[in-house]
């Protein structure tokens, strides 16, 4: 068990290192650099920028050095000082710029996952027990629609419904009085009250998928002999379902937690851009467009790191649930 997880953690670290290299390369891909862009902005504003000035700008931003040197400075600063470099656009350390936004994204992702699994598992079980009932069909339709409508389009449609029929705005994550307030319990509750809309939008696809999977697995399991045997022993129906087929069916669902996390993190920027949420999404888009390389790179790196760590956590969870994996998978 311990050996298994040591191996996992080592492979996670290797993946993280690889990721950092790939991210750095991707961020370097665009032709031109921030100095070029900055000079362009200055020229637009009416200041003449000579080639020497450009070089000076490059030296100032530290992008005149060879690529590998830049990479090593970046990565050693991350490892030893937790310093992700400086955002060119904001002239502040990347962590300062991302800071609260990253927290918001993390909360959004976690709440989305809780909502997804908290709803998908019971609804899936219910659909399976009451197969072909009205509720079953209703949930199936919702699941298919959730899978078919990409989340940013769902956000658009919800915006439209809100504006035309309800006259309120769903954009933003805080009520007016809390936007600039320091963190407090009241602010946190206010955040939760706003967060469920983007969470549902983000999680609907996953909800649909997990619900369908849970239903299919339950349908397979509930006709097996051990269930009949348990029923014959006179267990109450609720206890029976929860103790036997549901427990078996839950494992494959939990094992996809890592992918689900990846899906949510991957979709989050789009929903945030549409709903204008003050989290990492819009910031990431701007950073990419502005070639603010340390900012964009750090964010892509952090998103990937979140996914990788999340996958590890889901593996741990699965091992806790399933003794076969805990014992090393020799069965």
């Amino acid at each position, binding site marked *: 068990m311990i050996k298994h997880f040591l191996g996992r953690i080592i492979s996670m670290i290797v993946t993280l290192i690889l990721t950092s290299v790939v991210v750095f390369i*991707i961020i370097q891909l665009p032709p031109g650099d921030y100095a070029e862009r900055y000079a362009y902005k200055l020229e637009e504003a009416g200041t003449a920028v000579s080639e020497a000035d450009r070089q000076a700008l490059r030296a100032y931003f530290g992008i005149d050095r060879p690529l590998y040197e830049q990479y090593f400075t970046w990565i050693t600063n991350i490892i030893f000082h937790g310093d992700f470099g400086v955002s060119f656009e904001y002239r502040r350390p990347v962590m300062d710029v991302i800071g609260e936004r990253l927290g918001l994204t993390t909360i959004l992702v976690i709440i989305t996952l809780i909502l997804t699994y908290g709803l998908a598992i019971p609804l899936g079980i219910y659909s399976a027990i009451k197969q072909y009932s009205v509720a079953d069909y209703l949930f199936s339709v919702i699941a298919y629609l959730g899978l*078919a409508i990409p989340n940013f389009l769902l956000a658009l449609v919800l915006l439209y419904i809100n*504006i035309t029929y309800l006259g309120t705005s769903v954009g933003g994550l805080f009520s007016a009085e809390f936007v600039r307030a320091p963190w407090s319990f009241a602010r946190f509750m206010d955040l939760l009250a706003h967060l469920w809309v983007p969470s549902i939008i983000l999680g609907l696809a996953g909800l649909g998928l997990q619900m369908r999977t849970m239903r299919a697995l339950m349908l397979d399991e509930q006709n097996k002999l051990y269930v009949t045997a348990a029923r014959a022993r006179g267990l109450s129906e609720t206890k029976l379902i929860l103790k036997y087929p549901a427990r078996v069916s839950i494992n494959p669902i939990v094992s996809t937690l890592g992918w689900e996390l990846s899906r949510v*993190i991957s979709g989050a920027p789009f929903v945030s851009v549409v709903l204008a949420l003050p989290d990492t999404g819009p910031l*990431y888009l701007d950073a*990419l467009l502005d070639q603010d390389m340390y900012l964009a790179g750090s964010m*892509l790196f952090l998103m990937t790191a979140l996914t990788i760590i999340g996958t590890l956590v889901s593996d741990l969870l699965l091992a806790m649930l399933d003794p076969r994996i805990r014992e090393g998978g020799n069965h």
Partner: protein
Amino acid sequence: MSNQKWSRFLPKSKNRQKQEENTYFVATQFQLMWWKFRKHHLAVIGMTVLGILLILGIFAEFISPNTPFTRDSKYIIGPPQAIHWIDAQGKFHFRPFVYEAVGNRNPVTFRMTYEDNTVVMIPIRFFVHGDPYKWWGLWKTDIHLFGLAEGSVHLLGSDELGRDLFSRIVYGTRISLSIGVIGVLLSFILGLLLGGISGYTGGWVDNLIQRFTEFVRSIPSLPLWMALSASLPKEWSGLQVYLAVTVILGFLGWTSLARRVRSMLLSLREEDYVMAARIAGCTDGRIIMRHMLPSFLSYLIIDITVAFPNMILGETALSFIGLGLRPPIVSWGVLLQSGQNVRAISMTPWLLSPVIFIVLAVLAFSFVGDGLRDAADPYSR
């Protein structure tokens, strides 16, 4: 023979059942699959929808009443025009018609508003002469499926430059579907190649490819796509960007296919019938082509069907936030760009109509995928 002889004495329904069973036993694998697929009604509907979309894409120039760039200065940001069969007097007309749209400028907001002038009815004509075009750059003609004798009809309204939204969506269908096709093809080739090598050779090569696949999977796809598309040079032409976006989508979508091919190869290698074929003296090539491929080809087709919507959605999402295709090229995502701001959504909701096409396409693909999944195993009844 004996079957036929006895069947005369059986009750009629049983007789038919017998016949059905006979056809069932002599049916080829493909026939069995088709019967099974046909039973999945949603899949058949999905197939029909895909067929229609495909026709829209192929004959875009002919079906759309305008080119995507024709501006109708008399109808700017106009709402969808309704097609009528019954006129204001309650009289039925066999030929559908639209009312003449009269534009007024709102004195307060300075926005144009359009009203139907129910006196002037303009009949819709079929195979009319309209904007000249070259179909796939081959035939030069100006015949359109439908349109008006003079002026143009806007089934889904028009955008801020007076361009017909329906025409633009039809042209966008071609681009969006073709991105799906090319992207899926690319990831199919890559997946088949890497998965095949991985499953066939095994050992450290397998291990390396597996780690690599896991690594690509662990990077959140959309942010990665965003970063890659943002790195495309700004001065590239629309076509170059189109190709680059397709390649980006294709190169990142192969992972699930590679895993499928690998696991299929690994599990099929141990099957009894493969062993039997080997004992019978079949060559490796024959075993793979004749015995292994048919049994996992259907799964590959399912995976491709499922990968399609991902490609289309990826393109749409990228274009929507302005990182994907760029305006001279029309795709569903590009069309949605104008729906980005809240004001546009509330004032001109018809600009969101590409959403309907996207959702239809994605739903259709997932239903067809479901049907194929059932059909892939035609022996389970």
